[in-house]
């Protein structure tokens, strides 16, 4: 199990009912982590619609998790 932090923004924050959570996960990759959290929180967005960042850097979905990672799933953006 890996202890990580997940931050939520926009519709993910609303659907999770929180902006942040600390959790221990057996997920082997960021993709698996999202699948796990999607099931738990009922996220409507598919991972194909998201990007993912770890410790404030965009990352690939296949990347494994490391102890203490801060993970952010990034819904479609709309700045400007």
């Amino acid at each position: 199990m890996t202890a990580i932090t997940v931050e939520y923004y926009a519709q993910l924050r609303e659907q999770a009912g929180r902006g942040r959570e600390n959790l221990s996960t057996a997920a082997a990759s960021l993709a698996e982590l999202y699948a796990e959290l999607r099931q738990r929180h009922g996220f409507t967005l598919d991972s194909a619609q998201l990007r993912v960042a770890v410790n404030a850097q965009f990352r690939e979905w296949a990347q494994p998790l490391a102890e203490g990672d801060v993970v952010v799933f990034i819904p479609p953006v709309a700045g400007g």
Partner: protein
Amino acid sequence: MSRVSIAAAPADTDALRRALQRPGCGGFCAFEGWVRETNEGRAVSGLDYEAYTELALAEGERIIDEAIARYGVADARCVHRVGHLAVGDTAVWIGVVSPHRDEAFRACRYIIDQIKQRLPIWKKEHYLEGESSWVACAHGPAHEHHHPD
């Protein structure tokens, strides 16, 4: 790491503009995005912007570095608002200085286009009918064929 800011209150854009002034630069191009009263036919009463600030700042700095490298402009600044905005409020301000005007225009256009595609900032629109919804304008490389507006 201070050319980009994410601001909860209106920015002093005149101070930003002055900070860009330098004797060798003859061209200054600015762009502002204002909250419109309608989006896709629905009357908007206001909106909320939410940012993943740490990544937005880092990505914004990267975009400005890219604009300087591509167009040879001297410098640029960008401010994006977060929180509640009303119709007419300035959501984003970008300023670019350059010795010549052609590069200033191109770099300013590049920065706003990239900001809209890449900065982790989200917009929830509130409609006069009472609903609200998260608006997706763009999403990075996988969705690059969006209509620029």
